[in-house]
């Protein structure tokens, strides 16, 4: 295997453009899935039976079926009902759904881990159910859920590579195209790997930083 540094420099601009798209998708997806995840968790814990079971069903569906199936569903199925996204937003919606499903489980686990006496205390102080959820449970659960949440968000970022199948021009798609245009494999794959490690590594650093700040 010979190694061509000049070629790596030559493809670098293309790769960085694709990398930027991957970063955009990842950031939007992470923000949406955490927000939706928090709302669904609140609805699951505070809502009635129908809300609860429909959310449990949703979570089982996101956890049980592969991301490729979710992406296909958004891409092929929603247009049948007249809901049309472009490829970028299809990807964002599909990945956000997956991320939201997983984060509901993570938040629920973290909230379960906060002891019951906390809720009793909140009740004794006269807080309403929503208030005790927002002011007592959530801040504590937030700290507990940070490590598994980081893991899950890293998974969501890695799942952006699957959007290449619906022709989003993200990192993996561009790398694959470059392989087939130039028939150079090793250099492209090494660059691809390093760029993904950069995104996920940044996320891990951010989470370490937040975790260190949140320690009481």
């Amino acid at each position: 295997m010979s190694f061509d540094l000049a070629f790596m420099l030559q493809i670098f601009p293309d790769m960085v453009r694709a990398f930027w798209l991957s970063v955009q998708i990842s950031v939007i997806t992470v923000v949406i899935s955490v927000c939706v995840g928090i709302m669904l968790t609140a609805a699951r814990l505070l809502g009635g039976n129908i809300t609860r079971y429909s959310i449990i069903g949703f979570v089982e569906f996101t956890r049980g079926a592969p991301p490729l199936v979710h992406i296909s569903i958004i891409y092929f199925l929603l247009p049948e009902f007249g809901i049309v996204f472009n490829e970028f937003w299809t990807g964002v919606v599909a990945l956000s759904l997956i991320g939201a499903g997983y984060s509901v489980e993570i938040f629920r686990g973290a909230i379960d881990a906060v002891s019951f006496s906390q809720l009793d205390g909140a009740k004794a102080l006269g807080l309403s159910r929503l208030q005790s959820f927002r002011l007592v449970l959530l801040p504590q659960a937030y700290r507990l859920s940070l490590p598994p949440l980081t893991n899950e968000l890293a998974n969501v970022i890695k799942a952006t590579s699957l959007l290449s199948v619906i022709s989003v021009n993200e990192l993996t798609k561009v790398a694959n195209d470059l392989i087939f245009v130039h028939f150079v494999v090793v250099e492209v794959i090494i660059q691809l790997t390093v760029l993904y490690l950069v995104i996920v590594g940044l996320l891990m650093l951010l989470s370490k930083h937040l975790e260190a700040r949140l320690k009481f």
Partner: protein
Amino acid sequence: MDFIFIMEQMPRLLPGLMLTIQLSLIGFLIATILGVPFGIIRTYQISPYLSFFIDFYVFVVRGTPILVQIYAAYFLLPLAGIKLSPFWIGIVALSFNSAGYQIEITRAAIQSIEKGQYEGAFSLGLGKIRTLISIVFPQAFLRMLPPMANEMSNLIKASSVLSVITVFELHKAANAIISDSFKFLEMLFAQAVLYVAFVVLMTQFSIYLEKRIGTKLQIKNFSQR
């Protein structure tokens, strides 16, 4: 929704499901054979060079998407002179991926065993290896089961990505039917149901195993007392 169509297409979907099952079970088995010993080596820091290598390996596996790993296996193995069928390339990629996670699972489980267990074993005169085999590992194994079930379901779902290197597993089979019948709804529904069924089956199996082994360990403890 056209359920009759789904039933008609089952003979084309089920071989895909069979392949998915084979891919994930073989991949998981190889990954366990590699991951658990390396996890043990990593936990006890047996060799610093090996530990560094394992850490780096885990970082790469956890930091890159499965799709990239599959492409790497698909394009790089032939360059290294190893020519395999897409099925076996898939197995290589899946076990490469899963081994990284299983190393972490093993390490976390062994590290969660209390120090008192080691002290008790040593004070009874057991050697280091004997302590690992008959005291620490059985308890760690029980704690490894839930994350291992998680990993198994991730592996099943990752096997769907092998469709990009023309392995004819469930997702690819369903896509083939979609592209000649244009019945998206039915096929997406059918494959989602099959995937969820397989995942739930494996999760339930792990719960059963956990209960069984758990009671067995407790009974043993009880009778020894």
